């Protein structure tokens, strides 16, 4: 792949009536939504509602039973389309290549596609590791890092791609509150700086409300609400209120 083949504009995503079952387990029951180019779109929803499955469809790792995923109107299942856009995904489980060092993982996209000379790649890798607060860890192996550190390496690996479309699956779930804010800012600035289309799946309400242009709520395989953070707060649907305002009731005082 060369840069010449890359589409100049950032990618808009359209999901049309997506259905997916695993055996008898119907996970997605007709999901439709649209993400505009350059938008920062957050999908929230309870555990097991199919958020990760949805993201894997958007980047073309899973094939829908029925329905379509369109990138600027072209199906993601078409291999040519995947070559036209720089895309990246941060997996919930990080999915670092355990046989490579942290530095090799972060630089993998550039080395495999031979986009830059090695010295330049090393500089980019170190800059991106710095951005996620992991400077100087290039030579460590992924299994020597904590879960949260691995997640941050995965984020650095995705940022190196300079993606036009980037998917984050629970970017802050394993991070302490301070680091979660840092990563949230990083995602926000990435979106503002490069105008990349960003799709985030998260339980983290603080993250969602502080960075999202729009929020979608996925529940039991369907999108039950899409709107701006303010609209989500104002909405009176009990399912949404329950999710947005769930608190641990002060058990102790009783």
């Amino acid at each position: 792949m060369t840069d010449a083949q890359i589409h100049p504009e950032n990618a808009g995503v359209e999901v049309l009536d997506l259905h997916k079952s695993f055996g008898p387990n119907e996970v997605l029951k007709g999901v439709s939504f649209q993400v505009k180019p350059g938008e920062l779109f957050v999908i929230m929803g309870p555990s097991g509602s199919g958020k990760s499955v949805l993201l894997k469809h958007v980047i073309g790792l899973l094939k829908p039973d029925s329905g379509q995923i369109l990138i600027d109107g072209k199906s993601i299942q078409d291999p040519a389309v995947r070559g036209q856009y720089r895309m990246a995904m941060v997996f919930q489980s990080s999915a670092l290549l355990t046989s490579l060092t942290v530095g090799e993982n972060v630089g993998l996209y550039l080395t495999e596609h031979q986009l830059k000379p090695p010295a330049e790649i090393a500089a980019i890798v170190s800059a991106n590791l710095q951005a996620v607060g992991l400077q100087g860890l290039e030579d460590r192996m992924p299994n020597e890092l904590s879960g949260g550190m691995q997640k941050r390496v995965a984020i650095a690996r995705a940022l190196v791609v300079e993606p036009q479309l980037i998917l984050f699956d629970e970017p802050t779930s394993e991070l302490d509150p301070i680091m979660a804010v840092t990563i949230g800012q990083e995602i926000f600035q990435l979106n503002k700086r490069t105008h990349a289309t960003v799709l985030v799946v998260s339980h983290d309400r603080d993250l969602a409300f502080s960075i999202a242009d729009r929020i979608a709520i996925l529940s039991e395989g369907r999108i039950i609400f899409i709107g701006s953070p303010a609209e989500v707060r104002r909405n009176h649907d009990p399912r949404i209120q329950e999710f947005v305002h769930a608190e641990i009731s002060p058990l102790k005082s009783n």
Partner: protein
Amino acid sequence: MLPRLRGGLRQKNGRYAQILMYKNIGEILILFWQTLRSLHLLWRQRQKVFDQLFEIGNASLFMVCILSLFIGGVIALQTGPILVERGISSVLGGMIGLSMCKEFAPVMMAILVAGRIGSAMSAEIGSMRVYQEIDALQTMNIDPVRYLVLPRMVAIALALPALVIFSIPVGWLGGALVCDFNRKIAVNFDLYFQNLRDVVEVGDVCNGLFKSFVFALAVGIISCHQGLITRGGPRGIGRSVTKAVVNSIVVILILDYFLTRFLLYIHR
């Protein structure tokens, strides 16, 4: 009630297994074709080929020598006394020489490599599949065939014939040692190697090398495919490894028959 139920289940499983087998054979052929088509990208993957070659050599060379020494020895031990009885012990060198280079070295080395290297390949690729590393590659537009399968296939296709080249003379030596030192056989080194030189031609060695090359492709592609289709957690990886090794060995032995017929046919 119970026996009928179990019979029914078995029948159903049998048919399912059959369909699965055809599906797998089809997928393996497709994977092989995809690997061939990515061959022009080999230069970029050269470092990975070297790594794999080093690993194969490191893991197998010592075992190859020990194994070959004993294989040559046991052929001599089994056939020597019978040939001595009939007064034709002078042909021992040629006979062991031929069996070693046309049959034993390629087949036994292929089985050794299936157990030692094929298993490692399917385990490694299988765990990458289970832990979503292959998904991650795909999101970066890195083709797993090019990145994982190609270097392994090239490495095993180079390494197995190389191991056979080691194995053949060591096997000859094993045979010679037994012939010389076993009092019942008592064919000395000179006589043994004289006969071996008279009988064994370069073509016979090439014959064995060709076989081992085909075996290497079979072991490589079966193991990589099994790795790629791994499902489930650690237990799935274990199952994949077992299947890769068993299927490889079965295919080696079946292929061996047909390759031998083919080579006999073109040598006529």
